[in-house]
């Protein structure tokens, strides 16, 4: 008799299949989602993502939410094929809940990272076939060590800790350099920034990514579309409402572009 704590295993026993490559999809333009970033600020971790999903040079959707709250203390931001990424998020969300409820304790932060690694590893055939590559960022508050952490992955499931920040998606090369510059030679390192300043930074970074990457959607003021920005602190995950992003964008971002 096992520990009966693994929801993913349970799904497999019930016949659920994940990560199977589909050869027939070759030549089709697949929907992908683009720039995501996470960095440590004064109170925890900020995770942000633009809202655009593209298929080739087509804009599929401009209201995608790529920063997904998995539980009260963790967030997965997704770049790559949304169909696979949403399925992963759904499995993770249920896995963490199932673990907590069966074992009567939270799954450790390490355990959560491992769960995502396992999903990515099972997804390798689909990723290599070009039908389901996902390159996520996982960020959360480690309740045991009382510190917020950022991890990023490659499509094969290797996990890397982002000490100060992590980026992923097609717009990420643009902002990776900026993050390095700001963090190293800026007036203060990212980790010292208060919430509002960190938010302004995230808005500027995503606007820069949109400037150089057609697959990244910037801010669309006419439609009232702003990036998704979430904060992870000891007290949990919180989303910055659009009503607060709007004035920050207008006063601190738009006048610079």
């Amino acid at each position, binding site marked *: 008799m096992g520990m009966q704590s693994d929801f993913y295993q*349970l799904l497999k026993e019930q016949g659920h299949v994940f990560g199977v490559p589909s050869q027939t999809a070759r030549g089709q333009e697949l929907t992908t989602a683009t720039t995501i970033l996470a960095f440590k600020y004064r109170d925890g971790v900020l995770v942000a993502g633009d809202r655009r999903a593209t298929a080739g040079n087509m804009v599929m959707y401009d209201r995608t939410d790529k920063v997904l709250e998995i539980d*009260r203390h963790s967030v997965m931001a997704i770049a790559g094929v949304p169909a696979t990424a949403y399925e992963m998020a759904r*499995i993770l969300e249920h896995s963490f809940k*199932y673990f907590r409820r069966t074992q*009567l304790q939270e799954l450790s932060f390490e355990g959560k990272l491992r769960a995502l690694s396992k999903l990515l590893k099972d997804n390798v055939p689909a990723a290599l076939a070009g039908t389901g590559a996902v390159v996520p960022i996982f960020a959360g508050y480690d309740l045991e060590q009382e510190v917020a952490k950022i991890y990023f992955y490659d499509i094969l499931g290797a996990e890397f800790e982002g000490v100060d920040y992590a980026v992923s998606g097609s717009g990420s090369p643009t902002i990776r350099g900026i993050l390095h510059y700001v963090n190293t030679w800026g007036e203060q390192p990212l980790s010292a920034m208060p919430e509002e300043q960190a938010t302004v930074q995230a808005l500027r970074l995503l606007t820069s990514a949109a400037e150089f990457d057609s697959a990244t959607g910037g801010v669309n003021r006419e439609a009232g579309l702003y990036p998704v920005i979430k904060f992870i602190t000891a007290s*949990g995950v919180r989303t910055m409402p659009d009503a607060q992003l709007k004035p920050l964008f207008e006063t601190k971002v738009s006048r610079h572009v």
Partner: protein
Amino acid sequence: MYEEPYKWVEAVGNRRTYLDEQFKEGAPVVGVTCERGILLMTMSKGTPKLYEIYDRLALGGMGHPADLEKLRFNLLEMAHVEGFNRSASDVTGGRLVKYGMAPTIKQAFEEVFKAPFIVKILLAEIGQKAGKDGFLTINYDGTFEEKSQYAVLAATSAVEQKMAGYLREQSRASLADAVGTAIRTWAVGDRAQRRVLDEGEGHDEARTSQVTDAETLYAYLRRCIAEKTVECALLDRHVQGPSKYRALGVDELKTLLPNELSPSLS
């Protein structure tokens, strides 16, 4: 030996006697709705008896811990697979009990060559809106009942009726009211059960009246609190996010328990 219908009926009858015996010393469980959500309360020694099942579902149980654990896992498995394959709002207490739990328990009860589940289960479900809250209770033979305002589990149905009779008269508007009402109702049930134990089979305790003024109940409860742990869990309408279950810790309980009891809580 059970091929003859009469013998089978007799064997099932024997099971009832056997099972009734098993619950005599069990701790009652009380579930009440209040403005804040649904409160579940019991007292336990060692193993907990209140559990989170799904976003809006909580479980309270009486009986053998291993059987309760087995059924709890069944419920968790059904709820999470269903919630994953469909949606959280498709995971309802009614479906889990009517199509999952009750048939399993009934089958085990009637298969006289195998061991039955020694459990009674109370499933509480908080609705999307106030007024849609509900309870389901399942007996060891698989019979289930649906209730809306409150539900109780106790050793016998006579004790359950007695508890329900007391509970009906009490206020349960605020969370503190609900905690006070639940713990006094628990005392009514536990005291009745204990009286049956002390005075033997012949004494039909539940039929005779017993003093149920608050002071007597609090005195009884202070003795219980000294040797057991008060367990309270809340399906909290005010909690952010999809999961509404939270256990009430000692500090919070101290502020919610009636003044007559809070100092005895450690």
